């Protein structure tokens, strides 16, 4: 009985606190994306001949985000019937966008008008031991975003 109560408590914690954190993170992502619309990210490597390039530098952004308990339970249930695991979709989306925003912040620090070309995203997860020593997956997603920032004169 106690197990069930703890389980329900954990799921509720994940649902309410995790949900709140996700919403506030998304609000912050949207606000920063709007604020940095000027800074163009291109996944291609073509350089416009009209650009007067003053400086080229490697810029990177890193983000590791963990699931909440509700999401892992929801994903576990989803595993039984298959299909889209929307709980994890938003997780990966947040990690990617956060990493891109951090890369943008680094690029903006070069000053002036900046374009980032050949942007790449590398995604993986750190698998490992749980806190209590049992082997298991700390369900998290880590993203490295990187590209070449061109400071335009």
């Amino acid at each position, binding site marked *: 009985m106690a197990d069930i109560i703890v389980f329900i408590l954990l799921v509720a*914690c994940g649902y309410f*606190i995790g949900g709140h954190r996700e919403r506030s993170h998304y609000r912050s992502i949207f606000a920063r994306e709007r604020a940095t619309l000027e800074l163009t990210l291109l996944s291609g490597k073509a350089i416009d001949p009209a650009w007067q390039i003053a400086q080229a530098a490697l810029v990177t952004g890193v983000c590791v985000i*963990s*699931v909440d308990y509700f999401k892992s339970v929801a994903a576990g249930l989803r595993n039984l019937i298959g299909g889209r695991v929307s709980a994890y979709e938003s997780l990966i989306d947040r990690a990617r966008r956060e990493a891109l925003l951090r890369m943008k912040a680094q690029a903006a620090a070069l000053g002036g008008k900046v374009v980032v070309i050949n942007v790449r995203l590398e995604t*993986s997860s750190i698998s490992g031991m749980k*806190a209590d020593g049992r082997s298991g997956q700390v*369900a998290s997603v880590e993203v490295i975003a990187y590209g070449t920032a061109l400071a335009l004169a």
Partner: protein
Amino acid sequence: MILTTIESVPNLRTVEHMGLVSGSTVRSKHVGRDLMAGLKNIFGGELKGYTELLNEAREEAVARMVKQAEALGANAVVNVRFSTSAVAAGAAELYAYGTAVRVE
């Protein structure tokens, strides 16, 4: 040392290729970080400790790659890529590689 993810360095001419250079770091998490990660698995959100760890690993891998390029007499590394892989439980590798070149 100029690093780019494209084939060349803008405005500069590549005069010599020195071949592939790379740097890697294998990182694992310590108990304190894992404990916090365990809690974060309940509440969700960013794992700041891991983000920091990944950042350090990236810096270290790039530094090793740059050192190797310097030893070859290069002044730029072009076509830089990052790659990650899981080596074993609790350890992950971050690998940075690129082509060392001399530009003028």
